[in-house]
Structure formats: C-alpha cells, structure tokens
C-alpha cells in the first residue's frame, strides 16, 4: 500500500521532469493564409494566430517556437511529432477529430465566401470552383456538384480566379474579403456559406496535458475579453466574437 502511494506521488513528479526537459512547444502553422497566419516582411510568422499563440503560451508559461509546414501534410507531421500543435485556421470537423484532438475553438464558426471576378456571375452549382486541397471548403465544393480544382496554397486559388482558370474560389471569408476589397473593384464576394465548426488548435490525441493547458488559457482569454479584442483587431469590427 505504501508503495502504491509512493508511485502515485512520483508519477506527476516524473511527468513534470519530462515536461521540463523538453519544454519547448513547437507551434505548427502554414504561413500562407493572411490574416490568420502569414510570413511578414521580416520573414517571421505573423498574423492573428501568431499573436494569439504567443499570448496563450505566455499565459500558460510555455516556451513556444514557430514552425511552418505545407498545408497538405500538416496533420501527418503533427501526428508523427514534428511539431506539437497545429494553429493554422483549421476548422474543427468530425473527420479531423478522428485523427487528432482539438482545443476549445478560439474563433467562432465563421462564414466562407465565394470570390469571383466582378460581373462574371459564376455558376456556383455547376461551374468550376477552386479551393485549397484538404480544406473543409474543398469537401464542400466536391459535394456541391461543381467541378473542384484544388491548389496547394491559398495564393494559387486566388490567382486561378484572377486569370480565369476557375469561375470562383471558396475560402474563409476573412481571407478573401481583403482580397476583394483591395482589388479595386475587379473582384467581388458572391455568396456566403457556413461550413464547419469553429477554429481550434489541433494536438496529438496522446497530448491531453498540453491540450488542457491551452484550453484553460483559451477559456480565460474568452472570459476576460482579450480574445475578442484580438479578433476585432485582425478581422475588423464586424467579426464574430465570443
């Protein structure tokens, strides 16, 4: 009996020691999806998720470093341990939850939008629609009956609309809205759709402890209003907040 207590006591100690040993949390992101995450002119990861992630790490007293990974292999590389979290504008979906675990959502379910050239009136049901491969939007387009053309990066999807390869692109509204606003009237948002749940951080299923730590500070930031401030700062006044 005594032994059992001893071992029970020593377990958290050991766990603590292990955590202190490699206390670096590697934050994996895509770095190509402004304003969620992008590489700024200094060559560093920037954007809403960079600022959110740094704040979360500071509150949870974690030592975080940022790494980028291509979108299409971002989940396998998390599972195999090349980084510890995915914080890349990833919607929480049941299919993804089978493979990895998500924290509490830090962005409420937000609309996606079709972006098209002005005056083109694209046929969203039967036309040719671009989406980034492996996104909820790509699945949505595939199910909608339109011809899906997938691109590896968000940038290429917008370029495909601009040069007429496709009729429209479906992506998160927060990504395509600035593109439309700054196109000088060339491009417009056609229609909003609501797909998927909120956006959360992805972690390995075995990593419950880290997930708990992040959940705690996400809830804390939701309650004290600082998360809403950050949302408004990056996504504008009309952004959905908590």
């Amino acid at each position, binding site marked *: 009996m005594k032994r059992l207590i001893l071992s029970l006591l020593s377990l958290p100690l050991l766990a603590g020691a292990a955590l202190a040993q490699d206390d670096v949390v590697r934050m994996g992101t895509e770095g190509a999806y402004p304003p969620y995450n992008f590489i700024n002119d*200094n060559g560093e990861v920037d954007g809403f998720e960079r600022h959110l992630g740094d704040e979360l790490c500071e509150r949870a007293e974690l030592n975080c470093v940022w790494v980028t990974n291509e979108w299409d292999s971002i989940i396998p590389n998390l599972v195999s341990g090349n980084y510890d979290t995915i914080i890349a504008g990833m919607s929480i979906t049941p299919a993804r939850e089978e493979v990895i675990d998500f924290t509490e959502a830090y962005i409420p379910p937000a609309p996606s939008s079709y972006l098209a050239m002005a005056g083109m009136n694209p046929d969203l049901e039967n036309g040719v629609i671009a989406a980034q491969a492996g996104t909820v939007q790509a699945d949505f387009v595939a199910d909608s009956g339109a011809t899906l053309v997938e691109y590896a990066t968000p940038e290429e999807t917008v370029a495909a609309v601009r040069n007429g390869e496709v009729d429209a692109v479906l992506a998160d509204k927060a990504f395509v809205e600035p593109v439309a606003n700054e196109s000088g009237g060339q491009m417009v948002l056609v229609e909003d759709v609501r797909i998927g749940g909120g956006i959360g951080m992805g972690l390995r299923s075995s990593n419950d402890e880290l997930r708990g730590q992040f959940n705690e500070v996400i809830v804390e930031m939701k309650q004290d209003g600082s998360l809403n401030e950050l949302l408004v700062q990056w996504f504008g006044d009309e952004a959905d907040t908590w």
Partner: protein
Amino acid sequence: MFSFCSDPDTLEGAAWWACYLTTRKHLLFYSSFGTVLLLLVITAPAALTLGFGGAVASRSRFLPLAWLGKIYTSMVRGIPDVLFFLFVPLALDQGLEWIRHHLLCPEWAEPIRQDGNFVVCREAKLPLSSAPEWMHEIYGFLLAVVAFALVFGAFAANVLAGAMRAVPHGQLETAAAYGMSRAQVFWRILVPQMWVYALPGLSNLWQILVKATPLLFLLGVEDIVYWARELGGTKTSVYDYPHGDWRLYYFLVLLVFYLVLTKFSEMGFDRLTRRFSRGQKTIGSSSPTPA
C-alpha cells in the same frame, strides 16, 4: 534596413523600392542563393565519391558487390530522378527514426505505423523536438543533400565506369607486365588516366546537377524557388509592402540566375578541358571546338 524605411506606408518611388528590396524577407531570399550554391558545393564531391565507389563496385570480382554496383549505376536509367527526390528524404527520415525507436524505446508496445501515421517515441525523433529550430533546418537540408548525392552519385558512377573502360587496355597490360599488383595498376595507372575521359561526362553531370537544384523546393528546403513564390505572391495591405501577383518577375530573376550560372560553368569546364588535354592528343586539343 535604411532609416527612412520605418514607415512603409508613406514611401513612394525609388524609396519604396529601396526599402522593399531590402526587407528581411528579401535578404533571406538573397541568402537562399547561397543555399543553392552550398548544396552544389557539398553535393558535387559527395556524388563524385559515391560514384567512384559505385564504379569500382561494379567492376569488382566479388559478385554480390558487382551486382550491387550495377544495380546502383543502372537505377537512374529507368527511374526518374524526381521520384528519388521525393522518396529518399522521407524514407531516410523514417528509417533512421525506426532504428532509433527500436534501440531507445524497446518497451514501446504500440505499432509504429498506425493507419496513415508514423509514430515513434519522443526520444527517437530526429531531431529531438526540443532541439532548436536551426537544427531542424540543417537536418532537412542534410536529407536533401543525401538525396542529391545518391542520385548524382549513380550518374557519376556511370560516367566513371565508362571512363575506366575507355583507358587503353595496353596501358594496363603494360603495367601488369611490369609486375604491378592489381591495386597498383588501379591506383597508379587507371585512376590517373581516367579523368581525361571522364571530364566531358562530368561537365555534363555538373550542368544537370545545377539544373536540378530548384527541386530543393520539393524537399521542403527554403530555397530560391520557395522565396520567389513567397515574395512574388499577391500581398494585401496586411503586409508592409502590398503589391499584386509578381511571381512572373521573380521567376524571371531565377531564370537569369541559372542562365548566368550555366554560362560560367561552361566557361570553367572549357578551361579545364584545355588544361587536362595538355600533352594529350584528343579531339578537344586538335580542333578549336571541343566535342
């Protein structure tokens, strides 16, 4: 970089360009040209060494070794190099982690390959997840170097094996008649003489290697193609220096870089050929245009 760059929104004309072209991101772009040259400088001797080993192995009298050498030298004839570049880094990474996993975590019970994933224990990760970021980058670059060295080693083995065959048999027989051992004939007669026959092939190989360097991008190394795509892409006002889709212009820069590099390599090899064929009667020395 310059003091007047502190507020990019107010800049215009030449000042905007001066600041835009000297952002840290651009400096990273410029330094990635160094990454490409570094890859060339490391890969070339590594491939030559591997190629020499392959050529020697395929001439070996020990049959299994000869077969190994022959398979190595002939694999690049049937299989596209791109396939190796995709396969080798991933395979090598998983292979190393698999070995480390079995050495370091023998008590691990779960399977390594769970559907769609490759999971090894924390201690077996390469590099360790606690390692600083630069080690991860160096590791990725090293995997790329190994992939390049393997493929171009096989090409080089072809060239060197051909060059060894091209050394006149009389030379070798004469040396043997003088009582030289097999090793002596090899090192003192064959190897010094083969280079002049190998040079045209090696010069072509260098040109192919130069033109394969953009494939670094496929291996996830932040090379010139990566930065050209990143910098050239449309920039909204979230960025300090917004602009449209400029990827075409950035790729034009890369094109010019490679054309210049090719031209310089050609000139270099022409000089080398002239040097090597000094005192040798070859087509290269007797006609004004080397064949």
